[in-house]
């Protein structure tokens, strides 16, 4: 039983996961992640891919909202920028996925920094409303995007989804192949972002969140770091968007409206603000909730035949209700609930 923190070296003190039970848990999770696709069918693989992509986007949003304290209702727009820039590069120029995805992510980072410019003068609620405007403007550009050559939707040729020439359909079904891409990207994102908050920039982000004026007084360049936060956050939004484009093979603006922004905000609120693992839990929760409800409806449809016509409302209502209940009863999200469970066992039998 662990009774305190007894580090004897600086390296141990600064480690991300200082204790062996934590490392054991990480190892177990990694093993589970590696083993899962060999046993899962296509339905579960596609759910896992959706969760992994959503988790990348949610981690990106969490950098901005949870760590830097800049509320953004524009994540859907930034996802759209990533998806459509990758999609256009693949569809028009025939560029392969391993080129389009990084370029699209970088491009989204630039667009995100541009829409972060209002943060020079705005904060809190006003900034939230400014990002709402960004979202609406991006949606409008996409719906009236004749100059971009997008119709109702954009389809991405399957053969562009390859990595260094290895096609996604070469090894088994595409869901299985994409699993390694999406989960690989997610793992890289997690490693990058976990370390980001041990760096100079990450510390500056947290200082801005906690008290921006005080941060400015001690020498944090507010404008620069706010823009950097917008750019980093949008980079991951772009990554998630670009992966969505290649994974789905067809994208339309309807996938990236303000409802999507709200979905991502809900993920980080429910998972836990300012927590990388929380973003993943939230992404899983928000993705699995409608899937579970539709499975439930299918089970009950024998007994209650009209349940299927109510399913969309049940899903939407459950989503709203989940947000409200979490905010009222556990505002720190799933990550706090999980920590409570861990604390209970760590302190047992002296849980006071």
């Amino acid at each position: 039983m662990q009774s305190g923190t007894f580090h004897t070296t600086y390296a141990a003190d600064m480690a991300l996961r200082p204790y062996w039970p934590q490392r054991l848990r990480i190892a177990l999770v990694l093993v589970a992640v590696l083993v899962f696709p060999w046993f899962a069918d296509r339905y579960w693989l596609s759910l896992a891919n959706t969760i992994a992509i959503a988790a990348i986007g949610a981690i990106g949003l969490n950098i901005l909202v949870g760590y830097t304290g800049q509320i953004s209702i524009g994540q859907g727009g930034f996802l759209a920028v990533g998806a459509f820039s990758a999609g256009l590069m693949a569809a028009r120029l025939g560029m392969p996925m391993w080129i389009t995805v990084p370029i699209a992510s970088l491009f989204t980072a630039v667009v995100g920094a541009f829409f972060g410019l209002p943060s020079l003068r705005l904060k809190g609620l006003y900034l939230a409303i400014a990002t709402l405007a960004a979202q609406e403007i991006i949606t409008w550009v996409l719906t009236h995007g004749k100059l971009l050559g997008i119709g109702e939707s954009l389809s991405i040729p399957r053969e562009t989804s390859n990595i260094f020439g290895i096609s996604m359909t070469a090894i088994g079904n595409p869901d299985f192949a994409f699993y390694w891409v999406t989960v690989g990207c997610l793992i890289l994102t997690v490693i990058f972002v976990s370390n980001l908050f041990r760096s100079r920039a990450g510390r500056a982000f947290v200082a801005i969140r906690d008290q921006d004026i005080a941060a400015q007084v001690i020498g944090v360049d507010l404008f620069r770091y706010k823009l950097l936060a917008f750019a980093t956050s949008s980079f991951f939004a772009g990554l998630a968007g670009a992966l969505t484009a290649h994974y789905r093979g067809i994208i339309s603006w309807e996938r990236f409206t303000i409802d999507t922004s709200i979905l991502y905000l809900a993920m980080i609120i429910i998972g836990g603000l300012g927590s990388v693992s929380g973003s993943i839990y939230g992404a899983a929760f928000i993705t699995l909730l409608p899937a579970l409800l539709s499975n439930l409806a299918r089970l009950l449809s024998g007994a209650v035949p009209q349940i299927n016509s109510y399913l969309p409302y049940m899903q939407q209502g459950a989503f709203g209700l989940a947000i409200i209940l979490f905010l009222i009863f556990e505002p720190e999200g799933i990550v706090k609930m999980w920590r409570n469970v861990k604390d209970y066992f760590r302190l047992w039998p002296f849980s006071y």
Partner: protein
Amino acid sequence: MEKLVQLTMSGVANGAIFALVALGFVLIYKSSDVINFAQGELLLIGAYLTYMTVEQIGIWWPAGVVVAVLLAAVVGVLIEALVLRPLIGEPAISVIMVTIGLSSLLRAIVGAIWGVTPRPAPQFLPRDTMTIFGASVGVDKVWAIFLALLLFALLTLFFRFSREGIAMRAVADDQQAALSMGISVKRVWAVAWAIAAVTAAVGGILLMSIFGGVSGSIARVGLLVFPVVILGGLDSIPGAIIGGLIIGLLQSYAGGYLPPELGMGEVVPFIILLLILLVRPYGLFGQRFIERV
């Protein structure tokens, strides 16, 4: 000229409705610092409740409208008591998010009860047209403007002379001072939500009769409330009214004079919103705050 008059009239009519909705939004913000993303759903609820009382139950329409508006007020009070009150003192993002969750829940409830297919609205505003400066204009628009003005006048009297109204102004001015003078802040919040629900319901009913139908798209107007209140100033009631009219007119002119395939009417309010935020974030009439650490 004819087009100008028509566009102006529909702009003013829409603007008056925006102003009504924005007014409720500003009231909630002033009294409890809550940014209400569910304002559009309050419109939706008002419209559908009226549809229920007048069309489905079949009450004589003036009575039906009154019943629907009262029911909307009850919904407003319930929302405040059940959802917003537990979150007092939580950070801004939580409060924003809870109203977003609320909007999703309310839309789901409305959808589950009445479905998504648009339904024909009960007709109570006259549908014929009248001639103003040689242009034919729908009488329902004139009625909408008139009713909105009437409601503004009533609310102005309420804030100036009634006990509740003065208490609300006191709480908006300084919550702690108001508390120490024996004003029940909880009661003020309940009244603010009730009024917001009522103004939104009236806005929803007017929109329903202008559109000639009721459907989920009415809730879209809830997003337009943001350009309106930012233009006018988040905490200014005159600002909400003037901002509503300006946004309504600009939207109408942009939709009418710019090429229709661009759909500029939808995006112009948000471009204005960004510009205002960059140039004058506290809006035309909003209060400037000095920040301290």
